[in-house]
């Protein structure tokens, strides 16, 4: 069964460093998402991406964040200058439908720790 994959599974970085989190969505999916979950808190929407552009972003998704689909398979989240509060689990999700709110399939997540 097709699945969303994410790399790395864990990332430790120093405050102020740039990190790139990678996702490979399911191959025929058209919509891509990033969510984050700070430890002990609920899952929060960051950004959605369709047709090579951002379709919606939350207030969390400030200028430090960017997303890209550099080729036909990868979908990346870049954090330019990490802060301690960026420590969280980051989930990528994808769905295929253009007309309905079909199910989003999640990757296993990347656990980011900023020291």
């Amino acid at each position: 069964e097709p699945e969303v994959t994410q790399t790395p599974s864990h990332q430790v970085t120093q405050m102020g460093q740039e990190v790139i989190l990678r996702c490979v969505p399911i191959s025929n999916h058209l919509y891509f998402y990033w969510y984050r979950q700070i430890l002990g808190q609920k899952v929060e929407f960051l950004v959605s991406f369709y047709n090579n552009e951002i379709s919606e972003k939350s207030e969390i998704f400030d200028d430090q964040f960017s997303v890209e689909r550099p080729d036909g398979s990868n979908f990346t989240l870049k954090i330019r200058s990490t802060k301690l509060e960026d420590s969280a689990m980051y989930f990528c999700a994808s769905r295929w439908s253009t007309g309905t709110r079909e199910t989003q399939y999640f990757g296993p997540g990347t656990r980011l720790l900023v020291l």
Partner: protein
Amino acid sequence: AQTVTQSQPEMSVQEAETVTLSCTYDTSESDYYLFWYKQPPSRQMILVIRQEAYKQQNATENRFSVNFQKAAKSFSLKISDSQLGDAAMYFCVLTGTASKLTFGTGTRLQVTL
């Protein structure tokens, strides 16, 4: 704005018994989907069941079923014949036309022998 409320931070059920997890939501949209996602200790987010708001019939997936009360904006999850592998955090999730998912705070389910 969409909101999802899960008022039970933790629940416990004995193996083979039935448990119901509660969820209420609020949205101004008439067309939306509701989901229950499960997050085991591995933290992978797994879809359990989904309900289209326009459907009156409650969704069922094997041992999992929902009680969707549209007028009351209530969407509870019933797990029958609970198994040890059902132990996880369960999130009630709402999506509307914007397609982003709005999560509740979660209910941690313990399954005891």
